[in-house]
């Protein structure tokens, strides 16, 4: 039995505006195991990103609560690393300075932490680029640098908010493989929000489907691939992939 690292209890979220109340999420209950890769898919505007913001502590839910390792989340937590849609490397900082951003903000720039940053840069092939600026790197390398920036603060849970959607398709496939390998190697728990069904199946151990607004959990699919060393790219080639894809596609009920 694996340890449950993240728990969501009855999460509900309503946005208030002058024109009225918009219910974004309702009654979300979920438990994520340590080392698990969960992806959340749903029709656009169903509150997927809202859910991530709530988990990260940036947004307080209208009802319900979030627990990380049994602790109630009240604000941004050091146990969580957040990756946004674009890499958002700061173009006025070198790669090394970018990577140290999180530590600087948390006032934890110690020699050990720096060493760890160097270690990560070396392991993932960016050490030679540490004094370069983001504009001198390719899209894939930038994404990797953004991941390292998140990893340096040593979070247990990574939240990926459509983290690859700003890349073109081919780069995206390659970067997905890349990032997946790093997440697995560093043994992190990950929760990814995406609108791309194929991407979610190829990476996740579990796919959670949300309904239309207000988002509730519609179904949960445990993804099992008959593969020894599973990577997102190889996952796309096994026959089960299509089966999962069809199931999830039906459940999303996408009507144009």
């Amino acid at each position, binding site marked *: 039995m694996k340890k449950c690292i993240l728990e969501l209890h009855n999460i509900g979220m309503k946005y208030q505006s002058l024109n009225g109340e918009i219910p974004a999420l309702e009654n979300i209950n979920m438990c994520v195991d340590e080392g698990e890769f969960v992806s959340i898919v749903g029709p656009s505007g169903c509150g997927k990103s809202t859910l991530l913001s709530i988990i*990260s502590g*940036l947004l307080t839910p209208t009802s319900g609560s979030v627990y990380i390792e049994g602790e109630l989340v009240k*604000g*941004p*937590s*050091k146990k*969580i*690393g*957040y990756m*946004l*849609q*674009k890499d*958002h490397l*700061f*173009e*006025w900082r070198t790669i090394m300075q970018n990577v140290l*951003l*999180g530590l*600087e*903000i*948390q006032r934890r720039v110690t020699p050990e932490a720096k060493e760890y940053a160097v270690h990560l840069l070396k*392991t*993932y*092939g*960016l*050490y*030679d*680029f540490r004094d*370069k*600026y983001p*504009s*001198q*790197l*390719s*899209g*894939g*390398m930038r*994404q*990797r640098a953004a991941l390292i920036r998140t990893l340096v*603060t040593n979070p247990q849970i990574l939240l990926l908010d459509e983290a690859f959607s700003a*890349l*073109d398709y*081919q*780069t995206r496939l*390659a*970067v997905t493989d*890349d990032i997946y*390998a*790093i997440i697995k190697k560093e043994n992190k728990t990950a929760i990814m929000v995406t609108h791309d069904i194929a991407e979610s199946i190829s990476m996740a151990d579990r796919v959670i489907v949300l309904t239309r607004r207000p988002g509730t959990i519609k179904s949960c699919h445990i993804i099992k691939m008959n593969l020894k060393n599973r990577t997102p790219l190889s996952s796309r080639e096994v026959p089960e992939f299509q089966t999962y894809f069809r199931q999830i596609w039906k459940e999303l009920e996408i009507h144009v």
Partner: protein
Amino acid sequence: MFRFHKSRNNVNYNDNNISCDDSNNISYNGINDNLKANSSKAGNSKLNDTSAHNSKNGNSKADNSEKSKLKLKSLKAENSKTEEISKERAEFLNCIRRKTIMIKFTQIFLLLMSFSLWEILATYKIIDPFITSQPSRIINTIVTLYKEGVLFRHIFVTCVETIIGFTLGTLLGTLIAIILWWSEFISKVSEPYLVVLNSLPKIALGPVFIVWIGAGPAAIIAMTLAISLIVTILEVLNGFMAIDKDKAKLVQAFGGTKLQVMTKVILPASLPTIINALKVNVGLSWVGVIVGEFLVSKAGLGYLIVYGGQVFKLDLVMTSVMILSVAAALMYQGVVYLEKLLIKRYEV
């Protein structure tokens, strides 16, 4: 350029079509070369780097022409070392060089032509030099002013007032913009006031400043501030608002405070906007200073212009205008140089 001819024999064909107009070719090649060099250095690591190759094209297309100029320079340096250059490339570089020379030549030619024409027309009394002045008389006036020992005093007074004006305008404007960014309440409250102050012709405030502050340099600087401050506030605040909200979100996700969002993201990301405000302010401050000097002063280029106009000494007026345009251009170039120093890295 002779070097290039030597290498014509071992032509190194390039699949890009090289034409003189297509400056994108430069940046394309430059980026590719750089990345190749880089990724071969880092080639040991396993995760290196199919993605880099994939997105190269995307990167280089997005390049702007500024960057391509830089690349051109570095390419020239590289080429002169290796001396391996294709015939088409040599032609292309030559073509660019010819164009640049033609542009510079025409610019200088136009300047010399208009001054000569002015001089000749005035000498032969086709136009009245008493009203239009003429270049030789302007030079004489400068020499006279210099001999009287007042030339540099007037220039100095005006320049100092301008520099104080636009530095204060930019600093204060940025500071107020920070306050408005910080507090939505203050920002909402001050909005109608800013709109009114922005549309008010600030020159109307001149007499008010003179009465309040006294007829001296302080009133001139107040005038300058009145003209440049509101514009700076609005421009910098707009810059703050235009920064991607997700960048701030990133800092907040790391547990950052509002102050950290300001210092780590908003301010550094707005540096180009602030420099831009500085550029606009240089121009506006000259307006403020000259208007101020028209109204009150006893020294400075604005004073010379008004005085010259009143006693009908057009030589003095024209001379002051000439010095003014040179000083303004120099100061603007100074800001451009500052911009180059500070924001090399902001080109995306």
